């Protein structure tokens, strides 16, 4: 019987088919057990449909078909769920899958409640893995109602339960500064050492090139550009400080970005003055279009005249 719970399992099993043929491992045992269960299901459905006997090959074929069908539901439902950036398929994923596969979902409840249905007994469990007592911790969660009792138990709670920890963020100014400083220093050190390792270096000591590696000086083709233009970092910084007024000291929630000094009063004033200035000059730039300056005039076409 196609059930949401089992469909996923079917999908999960598929890759294991290529496993070893010797039914020794628990996985193999599960595989065989499922196969047997499916055979029982096929047989009971056949009985339901009025067959009294069937050839082994026919049952085998039908089992194969059923397994494929369930696997396909599982695979397809998984894809749908991942498509919407989830990891757990929901009911609607299954429904869409079934619809896509040409199955009339609305008939399903009626079919499930049909009077002549047969209930299959739990398959015999083989090789129940025994958990050593010492490792059990806490109470295993009971199965929810939609999972048949013969399904394996939930694992120990500590393997999946998460305890969200809400530590107080560090707000001590000194620690923050300390951290920011050492972080930056480490990054800079690592970065420059990496650059030095990967490129040419110069050294202050003839016998040692690794302790104080200096990245080799390389001449520029246009040296003034790097020397005069503010770096992108600085530009960005300038925009930031321009737009966002410097925050108050009390706001220490977002640690790395908001470390400000004790006095930010005068800054605010000045920052706003500066903004006014920039807007002023901005509006002037607009006027330039009407300026008559000889360098802005269009270049004339050559006249036909005798050049001296």
């Amino acid at each position, binding site marked *: 019987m196609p059930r949401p719970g089992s469909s996923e399992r079917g999908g999960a099993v598929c890759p294991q088919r290529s496993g070893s043929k010797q039914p020794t491992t628990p996985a193999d045992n599960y595989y065989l057990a499922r196969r047997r269960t499916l055979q029982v299901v096929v047989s009971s459905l056949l009985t339901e449909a009025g067959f009294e006997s069937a050839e082994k090959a026919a049952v085998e074929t039908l089992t194969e078909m059923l397994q494929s069908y369930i696997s396909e539901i599982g695979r397809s439902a998984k894809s749908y769920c991942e498509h919407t950036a989830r990891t757990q398929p929901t009911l609607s994923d299954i429904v869409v899958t079934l619809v896509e596969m040409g199955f009339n979902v609305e008939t399903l409840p009626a079919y499930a409640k049909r009077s002549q249905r047969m209930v299959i007994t739990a398959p015999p469990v083989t090789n129940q893995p025994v958990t050593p007592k010492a490792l059990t911790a806490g109470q295993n969660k009971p199965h929810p109602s939609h999972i048949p009792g013969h399904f394996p138990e939930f694992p120990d709670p500590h393997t999946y339960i998460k305890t969200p920890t809400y530590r107080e963020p560090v707000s001590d100014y000194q620690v923050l500064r300390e951290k920011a400083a050492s972080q930056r220093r480490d990054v800079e050190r690592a970065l420059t050492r990496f650059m030095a390792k990967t490129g040419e270096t110069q050294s202050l000591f003839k016998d040692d090139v690794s302790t104080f590696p200096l990245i080799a000086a390389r001449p520029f083709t246009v040296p003034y550009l790097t020397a005069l233009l503010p770096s992108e970092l600085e530009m960005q910084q*300038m925009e930031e400080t321009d737009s966002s007024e410097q925050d108050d000291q009390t706001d220490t929630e977002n640690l790395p970005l908001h470390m400000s000094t004790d006095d930010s009063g005068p800054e605010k004033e000045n920052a706003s003055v500066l903004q006014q200035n920039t807007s002023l000059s901005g509006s002037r730039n607009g006027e330039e279009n009407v300026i008559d300056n000889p360098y802005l005039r269009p270049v004339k076409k050559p006249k036909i005249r005798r050049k001296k």
Partner: protein
Amino acid sequence: MNRKKGDKGFESPRPYKLTHQVVCINNINFQRKSVVGYVELTIFPTVANLNRIKLNSKQCRIYRVRVNDLEAAFIYNDPTLEVCHHESKQRNLNYFSNAYAAAVSAVDPDAGNGELCIKVPSELWKHVDELKVLKVHINFSLDQPKGGLHFVVPNMEGSMAERGAHVFSCGYQNSTRFWFPCVDSYSELCTWKLEYTVDAAMVAVSNGDLVETVYTHDMRKKTFHYMLTIPTAASNISLAIGPFEILVDPYMHEVTHFCLPQLLPLLKHTTSYLHEVFEFYEEILTCRYPYSCFKTVFIDEAYVEVAAYASMSIFSTNLLHSAMIIDETPLTRRCLAQALAQQFFGCFISRMSWSDEWVLKGISGYIYGLWMKKTFGVNEYRHWIKQELDQIVAYELKTGGVLLHPIFGGGKEKDNPASHLHFSIKHPHTLSWEYYTMFQCKAHLVMRLIENRISMEFMLQVFNKLLSLASTASSQKFQSHMWSQMLVSTSGFLKSISNVSGKDIQPLIKQWVDQSGVVKFYGSFAFNRKRNVLELEIKQDYTSPGTQKYVGPLKVTVQELDGSFNHTLQIEENSLKHDIPCHSKSRRNKKKKIPLMNGEEVDMDLSAMDADSPLLWIRIDPDMSVLRKVEFEQSDFMWQYQLRYERDVVAQEEAILALEKFPTPASRLALTDILEQEQCFYRVRMLACFCLAKIANSMVSTWTGPPAMKSLFTRMFCCKSCPNIVKTNNFMNFQSYFLQKTMPVAMALLRDVHNLCPKEVLMFILDLIKYNDNRKNKFSDNYYRAELIDALANSVTPAVSVNNEVRTLDNLNPDVRLILEEITRFLNMEKLLPSYRHTITVSCLKAIRVLQKNGHVPSDPALFKSYAEYGHFVDVRIAALEAVVDYTKVDRSYEELQWLLTMVQNDPVPYIRHKILDMLTKNPPFTKNMESPLCNEALVDQLWKLMNSGTSHDWRLRCGAVDLYFTLFGLSRPSCLPLPELGLVLNLKEKKAVLNPTIIPESVGNTQEPVNSTNNHGQSVGFQNTFSNSQEEEEIDMDTVHDSQAFIYHHLNMLERPSTPGKEQSSGEINMHPVSTAPLSVFSKESNSSKHSDHHHHHHHEHKKKKKKHKHKHKHKHKHDSKEKEKDPFAFSNSPASARSIRSPSLSD
């Protein structure tokens, strides 16, 4: 002629008047660095028999000259290319300087001379006799110019415009002759038409109004047409061509700014202030800006930071900055203001002669000072004046004086007003650069003295008068004789002053302008309690070099308990003591506020002062109205009062310097209080930091509490909750920013009892670096970080070395290890995130050199040499070169010295070449009285060659080479030269008596020629036998006499002998280069093919025939010439070396 004082006005030294000049540059090739063009000068003869026209031209290849469309013969002779003839063995600087001055005179346009002598075709003589107009048309080209025009062509992919290639004119004083033939004098004014045809992606910026821009027929180039209708000297003509970004000034639409690609945002910010400077000058001068437009161009590899030309200024691109940069902003604004001041005085108003230069420099410097006062405040202004005064005083005392207005009589050596100098001050081109800088400094200080005398109001009236006269004259388009009103002369200026103010300033002028030297006062005092009189003793030192005696009024300010009182003492010949009555009785008990000079009344703690005396402090010449140095003695508490309560920043600075000698707790307290006082001028506080460090070091055994300034810094800049961590940077308050930068640097100078930097201080500085956080700052912290590195460098003390062991990592001092760690990280981070102007790299390089010098790190110039290479930012290169220069000195490395000298000759950037010589002069590897393995004959020859012929393309560089030679070897023959030649030196001294008469005009014409030719041979003989007998030395000596005499002769010959056609016919024919029609047709065909070397060869084939004997004179050539020589063994460059020899045979005829 023109140098005579008087009311006669301007008398041109030239026998013609230039009225208009056309400059047309129709091809500029960036790849080959060549220029092709022509000039056309419109000339009116002023004498009837004008048959030769002398013009200035250097480097240019002239391949055709026409006068009124007739082919004209010309010769080209430039004795400055090689000052002393070929391999003369003379090596004493005295001799060189005389010869050099003579050579410069020989081509000086203000003496009517020039390198290019054009013969007026005989067909025109009649025309000339009627004083009718002559049009001189000269076709020229310029190939790889080494001076005058500078090409910057980055070596990368793409078109020239994409690469940011540009070219601009540059030079020291009148250097326009380097890029086109002209009358390169500040006194020959004319109107201009300038045309430049450049690549369509480029812009040509030049003087005057851009009339139109027209595409060429192929549409790939465009021609910029400029008209300059205000009469202007050729020396004020300039040019800049490049793919500039154009910014029209938003406040003044007639002002246009240009910068190199990508820098437009910086340009916008940098020039946003310029309109205020304009407004200021126009207001104080009550005169509109004289030109109809103004252009600023920012270019790379600038010759000087600021160069002012008619209606445009060329700036170094490194002055551009963004809004985040604090330190550069005032510096750049000062440069802009300086350039603009020179537009009025220097460009619009030009000078009559070199000896009037001081007036222009003085006025432009003075009005620039007024701008400073208005913009940065009185404190900054007074600080600047004091700084300039200290500089000029130090320089004059060191070198023996700067003379603003030299008057030269007849050229006799006795009359040389600057015999204490190793160069001639007759010409701008022979001046040491440092001297010229100091000259400008003195000029504006003297203007200020004149202002003190006649009041600022009158001063500005005088300027206004000069400007309006010039302005009226400039509008007289067709009356070129009026144009001389645009020239300023010393006498004219002084007359103006006396007319406007009615005051006689002659004594002042005599003292400071016509005479060199400064005044040195020594002052001390005693208080006579009985008479209640201050007995002031003022002595002068007027015997040391660079000093002069001062007689006249001297202001003394005495701060007493009852107030501040000014006294004017009369300094006379013999009176040393001056009695000054005091106004107040000493008192202790009365608690009363003490009135200060500015009317303020303050409470003072008077417990420190002498109970008997009412004197708080005394100042001599507080207004700096004498160019002087004052050494005044008063007790420490008086200096402390002066520091605390005197409101004049100059007084405060003087007090701080004086307190260095009084390391007491009271001094410490006074300095700390000043440091903390926010109302106090920030420069004073910065100075106090360094003084405090010195005092702390002197008091090291008794010092209590934490290291000096540490708690102060902590209080001012560290977090309240965690005092070991500095606040995140916030540089909104510039005063505290400068203090924050300076304090660590000063603290690092602290030393403990072992003379080491205290560990606590080092850790403190390292923490500042560690916790430095600029993320929330509006401003860049690059200068701050750079100064923290400087602080680290300051903390370094000499390594304790055992048995001179080799410095390795293992025996590295742990503190030094920490410092090195920081420097390494900073220097490496610069590669990834470079700072503005690479200030951090500069500081790191300096710090590494300090570590090397102190023996912590092995001394090695390799690192610096890599940073000194072309392609690094100029500041970085200079810092690296400075380290190499220092290494050369400390390690006495011949190899590095050679490396530096090679760079002086070959580096593409003129400024670097100049700077290397400058640094070598300031930090010489050895001096004349020192034994050094570096001092050998080869070096002497090399330097001699450098100044004799290797630097002829750059006046400044040549003078720099002369300075270096002087520093290394002195004036006389270098002592390291082989002994036999010592006789020659003595010999020369005797011969000087012979040499002198040759300078006198009378003896020139008749006797010298035969000697001339014979000596040429004697010279070569002498050269082959260096260690020869006295007979030959005699000959060599005669030759040297001849050498200089030849120039002088030439100079005088051109001047004195009237060039009447009849008399000179014969020699003239030979001299002149007859331009036959055959080669000319070849020329004109090829004129567009830009293979100018060919034309060139043609000419010299012909020269060659006449100069067989003188072939040896062509040894010194430009590099490109020698290349050509390979192609054609008979090719001669247009080098004056060759041209000179044209003359020689004719003289011997």
